[in-house]
């Protein structure tokens, strides 16, 4: 094509420069966007790296699978014989999570089904807002509620000697994981193609039959993801369980009926880190490259951090894969 020959004037040069400056700015911004886009990958890796870095000396020198995972003896500050067994802490996390899910799953799924299928639009909006408010309450406030409100309540109702126990923390954590379960479950119920529902209703099925026979089976991946994310939330919860579990190293499971004693105080992985981090000193290696025994406590807390990271990573990845299923169907 014939490009009309432009005269070289000051105005033209200025215009040309201006165009290039704008172009450069644009490239710069787009570059930044790409960088930020991959930042979350970088962050996840650096979380793992930095936590691992601090815990590495313990893993190298005194990590022993059997003594670490299968021993209930958690005596990190004992003078003569320091023992780092996290079985009791795992049991504590497990017991709180079990109670939390027993509280949260039925109610959350019920709520999700109610919101998605049984109520009018206005009610739906209101319910969603309330669920959101539930999600916004800070975990330390939940912990405070566990300490000040449900603690005496449990003592009064069950006659347990102390109200700070797995049951208390479980109820609190259960309430905390309701919002995430409800929102993911509701999403996945709504992602069921309208055609399925219309077909079922055209055949004369009632709402309940449709829900039970058509929607729930079709949405089961999403519901599984919702429950898994709830579990992830419960495992990772820190402040509320610190304040509401009673914080004693204890395995609430044994052979006696009813096998699971929810009214006993427990201690979780997360609460252990938060409670002991302040007291554990970070000591450097001595001249010969070996760490003093006192340094291990700090390091083992980071190892617990790695354990938590791995647990939640696995749970979230599975949940994400399950959710991917529904997302793709939606499109």
């Amino acid at each position, binding site marked *: *094509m*014939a490009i009309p020959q432009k005269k070289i004037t000051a105005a033209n040069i200025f*215009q040309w420069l*201006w*165009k290039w400056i*704008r172009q450069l700015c644009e490239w710069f911004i787009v570059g930044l966007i790409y960088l930020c886009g991959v930042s979350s990958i970088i962050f996840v890796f650096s979380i793992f790296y930095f936590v691992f870095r601090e815990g590495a000396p313990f893993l190298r020198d005194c990590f022993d699978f059997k003594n670490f995972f299968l021993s209930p003896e958690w005596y990190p500050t004992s003078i003569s014989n320091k023992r780092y067994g996290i079985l009791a802490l795992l049991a504590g996390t497990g017991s709180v999570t079990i109670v939390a899910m027993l509280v949260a799953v039925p109610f959350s799924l019920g709520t999700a089904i109610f919101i998605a299928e049984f109520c009018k639009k206005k009610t739906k909006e209101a319910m969603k807002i309330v669920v959101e408010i539930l999600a916004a309450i800070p975990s330390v406030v939940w912990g405070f509620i566990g300490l000040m409100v449900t603690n005496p309540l449990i003592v009064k109702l069950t006659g347990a000697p102390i109200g700070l126990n797995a049951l208390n923390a479980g109820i609190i954590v259960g309430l905390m994981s309701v919002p995430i379960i409800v929102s993911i479950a509701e999403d996945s119920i709504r992602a069921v193609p309208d055609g399925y529902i219309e077909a079922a209703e055209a055949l004369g099925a009632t709402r309940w039959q449709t829900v039970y026979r058509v929607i729930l089976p079709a949405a089961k991946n999403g519901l599984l993801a919702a429950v898994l994310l709830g579990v992830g939330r419960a495992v990772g919860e820190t402040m509320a369980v610190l304040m509401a579990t009673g914080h004693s190293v204890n395995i609430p499971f044994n052979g006696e009926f009813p096998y699971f004693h929810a009214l006993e105080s427990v201690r979780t992985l997360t609460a252990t880190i938060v409670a002991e981090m302040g007291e554990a000193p970070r000591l450097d290696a001595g001249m010969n490259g070996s760490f003093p025994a006192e340094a291990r406590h700090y390091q083992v807390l980071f190892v617990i951090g790695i354990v938590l990271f791995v647990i939640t990573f696995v749970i979230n990845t599975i949940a994400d894969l399950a959710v991917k299923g529904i997302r793709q169907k939606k499109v």
Partner: protein
Amino acid sequence: MVNENRVEIRNLTVRYGKTISLHDVSLDIPRNKIFAIIGPANSGKTTLLKSINRTLELESGSSVQGNITIDGREIHEIWNVYELRRRIGMVFPLPVGLPLSVYDNVAYAPRMAGERRRKVLDEIVERCLRQAALWDEVKDRLKNLGTMLSGGQQQRLTIARALSHSPEILCLDEFSIAIDPVTTMRIEDVLVQLKEEMTIILVTNLVQQARRLGDMTCFINKGRVVQVDTTEVMFSDNPGNQLTYDYVRGVFG
């Protein structure tokens, strides 16, 4: 200006994933003519337009082979793709008013190209809206949202926007779907005038529209060019190809 043809397409093959939507298409589109493309749904007409202004490469999963030249320049070698797109006006079947005022809708393209002088923009807006037969209806509400206009008005707004950067080639893809017959006739008149200034590629599913407007007509079926010829020949009793004859007479399609 030796070359008579504005756009030359050679051996163009376009794939979306595994499906081939254009198969070895070669076309010459002459200067300052209305080039009509007809063909049944899903035959790759829209894809052809998208590959001319290279918006196809923004869609995931598409791959393009073959050459397209505009005025002898291979478009896949053009480094500044935005410059290319500014030389091609594009109107798609469903009207899209941007969520901006009517004025900003039309002034959008010049502004993105760096034009900031109010006077120039005013002129462009008025000229384009007049060309698109919309000026009289909206001249008192240039500040209103473009998305609040009626469907037909929005389509004319889209045409005005496509004209706003003074394209050399105007591609219209079934522009009359969303507008009433009277407006369609007015726009068709506009097109006939515009062909003095630019080359127009008109994709249409209305065979009669192609007959009314087209200087050349091309019939595409299932991603292949069946026949290209002057409109008179294509719509004559003996176009030389049974498929074309059948389609033009409405026997199939």
